[in-house]
């Protein structure tokens, strides 16, 4: 098993909570499809797609960082973790730009049901991104020596798994909020 058992229990819990978010969103969307489809046209799809690219790429860097640690490739691990952190930072910048664009246009949490779910779900996900960036910063520091014991690799795997969850939850949010009509 990659990483610690406790981390997997947390990850599973998190995925269950988000499953309820996805189901809630589509259920209420079903009550007023027209409102949700019209509101969606106000989202900046380029921001959504760019952030998907950031998430997928950061996850790729994290997966390679763990593999580099197993192969004892020295400094490649912390370098790859910091590249992943950079992508996380890119995601955060785009998200802030996106929120400010919406707020400037007068679109807030109370505009309608679509935007209430948009702000709550992407906001909770954004908190995950910020916590995940903290984890990536710790992993970069932790792997800085470029020497890896079995325990160290296990701890790296635990942190890496959390970041991958942040990525996969965004994949679904992007599809449901930005793409389906």
């Amino acid at each position, binding site marked *: 098993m990659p990483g610690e058992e406790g981390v*997997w229990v947390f990850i599973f819990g998190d995925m269950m909570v988000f499953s309820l978010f996805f189901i809630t969103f589509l259920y209420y969307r079903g009550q007023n499809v027209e409102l949700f489809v019209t509101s969606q046209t106000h989202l900046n799809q380029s921001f959504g797609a760019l952030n998907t690219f950031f998430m997928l*790429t950061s996850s790729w860097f*994290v*997966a390679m960082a763990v593999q580099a640690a197993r192969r004892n*490739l020295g400094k490649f691990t912390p370098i790859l973790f910091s590249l992943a952190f950079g992508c996380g930072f890119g995601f955060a910048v785009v998200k802030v730009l996106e929120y400010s664009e919406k707020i400037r246009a007068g679109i807030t949490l109370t505009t309608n049901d679509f935007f209430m779910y948009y702000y709550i779900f992407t906001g909770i996900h954004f908190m995950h991104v910020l916590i995940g960036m903290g984890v990536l910063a710790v992993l970069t520091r932790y792997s800085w020596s470029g020497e890896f014991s079995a325990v160290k690799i296990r701890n790296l795997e635990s942190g890496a798994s959390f970041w991958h969850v942040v990525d996969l939850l965004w*994949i679904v949010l992007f599809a449901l909020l930005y*793409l389906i*009509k």
Partner: protein
Amino acid sequence: MTELLRSRTSLIWFLLVAATVFSWEVGHGVGLHDARHAGTAIIVIAFVKVRFVILDFMEIRHAPMPMRIVGEAWVLIVCTVLIGLFLTAHS
């Protein structure tokens, strides 16, 4: 490092990005003109991507069988429920 870049992980990343571009096109009316077909395709593609993240990036492909079953079951159940809700709304 070249070895890492040439690994399966890199191929998966490339496919995930390609799938995102494809979903984007479908979401903008390319190929599937019926919103029900396009939406279903977008949800299926999202969960195929999620499955690859779980199996290859989170390395559940080689984890103990119960973990893999939980991962696969989550993907299948959530994807099916979401498609069901989506199609019900459009029926």
